[in-house]
């Protein structure tokens, strides 16, 4: 005898879609609202900048001018900004565990469901 799923009400369908929507929007917006999202690229401006002190040669100065920036002070933040790649090993390990644990969980639970599918499609429960 094959498995006969229950019929879902219209309200139930709306509830399920709303659940997924809340999860999706939450995953993006919660880190944003908590101020935890985004990589910090911090400018380290130098005093009294000149193109030479900012390490820009004659051709690069022409390129900046063509892009509408002729004053080295206006390019100071852009040229001196750098990412901070320092990190804690603990947070790296937590992230690795999350990714690996997620895939292990999904594959194991999937296999349990897959056996039911194969059993019904090919086995004694064939429809």
């Amino acid at each position, binding site marked *: 005898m094959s498995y006969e799923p*229950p019929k*879902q009400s219209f309200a139930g369908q709306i509830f399920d879609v709303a659940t997924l929507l809340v999860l999706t929007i939450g995953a993006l*917006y919660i880190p*944003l609202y908590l101020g935890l999202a985004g990589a910090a690229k911090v400018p380290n401006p130098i005093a009294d900048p000149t193109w030479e002190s900012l390490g820009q040669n004659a051709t*690069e100065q022409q390129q900046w001018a063509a892009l509408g920036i002729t004053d080295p002070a206006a390019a100071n933040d852009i040229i001196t*900004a750098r990412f901070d790649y320092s990190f804690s090993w603990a947070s790296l390990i937590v992230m690795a565990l*999350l990714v690996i644990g*997620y895939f292990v969980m999904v594959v194991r639970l999937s296999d349990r469901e*897959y056996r039911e599918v194969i059993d019904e499609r*090919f086995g004694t429960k064939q429809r």
Partner: protein
Amino acid sequence: MDDITSAAAEPDRLRLLRVLGPSHVWALGVGIVLVGEYMGWNFSVGKGGMIAGLMACWVAGLLYTCVAMIDSEVTSTVAAAGGQYAQAKHIVGPLMAFNVGLFLVMAYTMLEAANAITVGFLLDTVAGMQGQAGLNQQPFIVLAVMFLAWLNYRGVLATLTFNLVITAVAFLAIVALFVSVQFGASAVPLDFSAITTDPLPYGWVGIVASLHFGLWYYLGIEGTCQAAEEVRSPARSLPYGTMAGIMTLLVAATMTWYICSGLMPWEYLGQAGTPLFDAARVTGSTGLMILLFVGTAFATLASANGCINDASRAWFSMSRDRYLPSWFGAVHPVYRTPYRAIVFLVPIALIFALGAPLDQVVTFSILSGLLGYTFMTFNMVMFRNKWPLGKIKRGYVHPFHPLPTIVLLILCSTAYFAVFLGYGTQLSAMMCFYIIASLWFHFRRYKFVRRGDQFTMPWPKPQGY
């Protein structure tokens, strides 16, 4: 094979039309991805410097070559709407399929939102150049998404023919810029002195970090197999279209890096919103500026167009299998498109396009894509183990197995670390989202799924079961 597949599940339902050829598959893949050359890739230069940007371009190219090889074999055999979703359903199991479906919907809907944001930014930039600074971008974002959704609603052939034309124009614009600069059309010469004076501003860690945005050069090429159920000859068209697509993108990516790195200081390039358009501005040629403006606009529209097509097919497929409410699994009686799925995803794309920063939306899309590529590694191994070569008819057999799978897994692991460098919170938030969604599916939603209907290919029983 596919007729049997569809008929087995539900004989009298409306089916998607088989009208597409290899060129449409190429247009779908390249059309979604080419925008990666027009914006976003250059953040990899910002994360690691000029050399790191080039290495990210090639390493990501290697990753996507593995993706295309693996995907071509599995898709040419499991030719059903939903692409990787249908693969997961037949090879790993329903929960994995649900997750893969979500990867696809999230990756493409976020990419669509990123494209819409770029359209608004581009128009704002050009308005500023004309002395009309402060343009309200939101109406243009809404208009772009609504127009493309309407196009998708009306039919897949018109949608992808439209994509074919505007993708070709966007690609030729890159070639034209490259050739023109080589023949001296630029008022400012190419300058690569930063390669020797400031080769690796972040050291070797910068090369790893840059891989994060290096993925953006090619993200979405795997979308070619979303149209599997609408292709006239999946076994021929899908591998040809996909491999031609990845070759096109490798060429375009290298040309893009060369021109942009030569015409702009790397510090500027690393944070530019529309790098190819900016490169055209540096040349001082009005013709090139107009051409690259058109190219940027067309690339973003083609990408958004393909994303709507792919995300809606994945949503449609999941609904048809009751992984999501079955109401979304309807086909339009006249246009034969998954119209409810298309319409439903429009406001979701707009929520992100109108309310979230570009780098967050891009990262969300990249992470969903990355999870999908990780899935492909063990999916390929399981596919070969459950149905060894010769057991079932394959449209295409990729060479050197399992080498592409091993390389892909190593590169995916490196890419996770690259994203972690600076965007670890988003990665954790996304993993929590997928874990909760998986538990929700397994313990609540799966009871509505018909077990036997989840395996529709006319294959023998898998080995080990």
